[in-house]
């Protein structure tokens, strides 16, 4: 059995056709993980016993000739910010080193109900805050395509396992680019659905008005298959939308002829690497040959997206991370004698540098005398960014851009300069602020062999068009 080239699609077929058993497949994956993952550091926790039990149940169903659930036996990895009952969940933080959640994240539960097998939890930047996976308390993840480079972040582990073939697919989370940017750096597909499309119940909150869950996969069709299972209203998350969920797989292979594609000039200016530009422009040319109409557009407030994001995301961080107080779960400092000392020391010892930086920035932006100047101002600019997109989507069906300004950078290259790290998300943050869906699809590589990603953004709840176009880009490269 060659497990290296398995997709969600081919795995479910192989299990259904009894080419191999689910247990055998899971065992093969753990062999590969144990041999190869120590050099990559993408897994933080493996749940082998649990996975084998679930695989056994799939094999039992198959043996009895009972109908199998849609993703029966597909081995998956879950970013360690989504809770699973009984499986350690750290969020990449020391403060949750020994946290064993008492309940399940809805998106994960839905994958498991569909028959997917969770192999383990993947490494990430602490509380999903970072663009390189170097902010994990458990060491950085290395990019499987070039181990001297970062896999991107914050879902670096989830992108790396798909790239390395140590899971068939993974779930990640995206608050400012954390699914699409690592997908681009590792040469895999990463889909951020519309805000509200997928429940966040059981996702450890970073910035609630920006957090999304979505798939990282090796093909666009796989992303469609996974999205199908996790999409839809969840009574446990009041921000999950009660909007019809179409059949996403049906979009794969549909012609793209006649679709209008916006190419925003602001995404092709200063700072864009020449090789990335060439690959992205070549892909856009290909889409034009497939019959898409290319429309030059402007998203005039683009340069304000990063400053807006770092006010809003950090303000929400400061509120969300107030819950880590050493009382109900997680780490508690042993140095403290009073309650207030306990809070302060627990948080200082438990959080890493970037998390503290963001809590401080957010607390400052919300503090008396600065609220209007920073937080309210940023919320108003968020409206302007949204209007940019409303305007654009009156003219076009989707927007295409590079996912990132450069290919994967080296480990340590940006760790001393938080601002330069923040700018790695310059093309991805806007979609989070505006709430539109976006995908990153591999569209080429640099001369030195590093993957390059193309980003496609769609209208609210129009993942269908995004997936259809993503598949067209992928298909053009394959032929």
């Amino acid at each position: 059995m060659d497990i290296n080239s398995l997709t969600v699609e081919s795995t479910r077929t192989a299990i259904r056709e009894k080419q191999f058993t689910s247990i055998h497949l899971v065992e093969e994956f753990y062999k590969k993980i144990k041999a190869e993952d120590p050099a990559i550091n993408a897994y933080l926790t493996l749940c082998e016993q649990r996975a084998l039990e679930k695989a056994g149940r799939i094999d039992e169903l198959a043996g009895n000739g009972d109908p199998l659930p849609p993703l029966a036996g597909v081995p998956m990895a879950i970013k360690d910010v989504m809770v699973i009952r009984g499986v350690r969940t750290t969020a990449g933080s020391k403060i949750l080193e020994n946290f064993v959640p008492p309940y399940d994240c809805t998106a994960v539960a839905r994958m498991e109900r569909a028959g997917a097998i969770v192999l383990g939890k993947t490494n990430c930047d602490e509380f999903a805050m970072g663009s390189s996976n170097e902010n994990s308390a458990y060491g950085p993840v290395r990019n499987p395509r070039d181990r001297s480079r970062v896999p991107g972040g914050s879902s670096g582990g989830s992108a790396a396992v798909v790239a390395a073939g140590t899971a068939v697919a993974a779930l990640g989370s995206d608050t400012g680019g954390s699914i699409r940017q690592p997908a681009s750096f590792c040469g895999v597909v990463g889909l951020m659905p519309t805000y509200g499309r997928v429940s966040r119940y059981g996702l450890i909150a970073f910035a609630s008005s920006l957090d999304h869950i979505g798939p990282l996969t090796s093909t666009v069709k796989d992303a469609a298959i996974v999205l199908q299972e996790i999409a839809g209203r969840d009574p446990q998350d009041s921000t999950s939308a009660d909007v019809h969920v179409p059949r996403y797989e049906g979009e794969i292979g549909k012609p793209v002829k006649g679709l209008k594609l916006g190419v925003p000039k602001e995404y092709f200016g200063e700072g864009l690497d020449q090789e990335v530009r060439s690959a992205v422009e070549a892909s856009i040319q290909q889409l034009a040959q497939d019959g898409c109409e290319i429309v030059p557009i402007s998203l005039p407030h683009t340069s304000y997206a990063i400053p807006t994001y770092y006010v809003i995301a950090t303000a929400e961080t400061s509120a969300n991370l107030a819950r880590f107080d050493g009382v109900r779960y997680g780490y508690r400092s042993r140095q403290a004698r009073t309650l207030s000392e306990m809070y302060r020391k627990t948080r200082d010892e438990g959080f890493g540098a970037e998390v503290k930086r963001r809590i401080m920035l957010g607390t400052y932006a919300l503090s008396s005398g600065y609220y209007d100047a920073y937080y309210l101002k940023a919320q108003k600019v968020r409206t302007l960014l949204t209007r940019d997109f409303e305007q654009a989507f009156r003219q076009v069906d989707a927007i295409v851009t590079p996912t990132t300004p450069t290919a994967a950078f080296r480990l340590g290259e940006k760790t001393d300069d938080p601002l330069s790290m923040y700018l790695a998300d310059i093309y991805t943050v806007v979609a989070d602020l505006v709430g539109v869906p976006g995908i990153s699809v591999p569209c080429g590589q640099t001369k030195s062999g590093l993957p390059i990603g193309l980003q496609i953004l769609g209208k609210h709840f129009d993942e269908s068009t995004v997936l259809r176009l993503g598949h067209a880009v992928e298909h053009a490269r394959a032929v």
Partner: protein
Amino acid sequence: MSITEQDVTYVADLANLELTAEERSRLAKDLSSILEYISLLNELNTDDVPPMAQVSASFDSAGQSAAERSAAVQREDTPVPCLPHEAALQNAPVSNGDFFKVPKVIER
């Protein structure tokens, strides 16, 4: 915008973060440069622009009125079992079996 170590101490207090002297000076420097970058936003006149707190509020594509949206986010008020006592306490750093234990709250 220049942040002093005194500002850092004040904000750290609000955020319940004990910081070392080294962390304070590093944060004063980092926050100053990040806030300077954020001040780019002041180039924009936003006098007549409403603030946006949530994406969901602007979903036109869902085709729902405000009342429908509000009804959609509410669920039936049906009692369901909550987390058992034991499960809720299982991750507590210190508990006495019935309650979370914390250091003395009132100091004399």
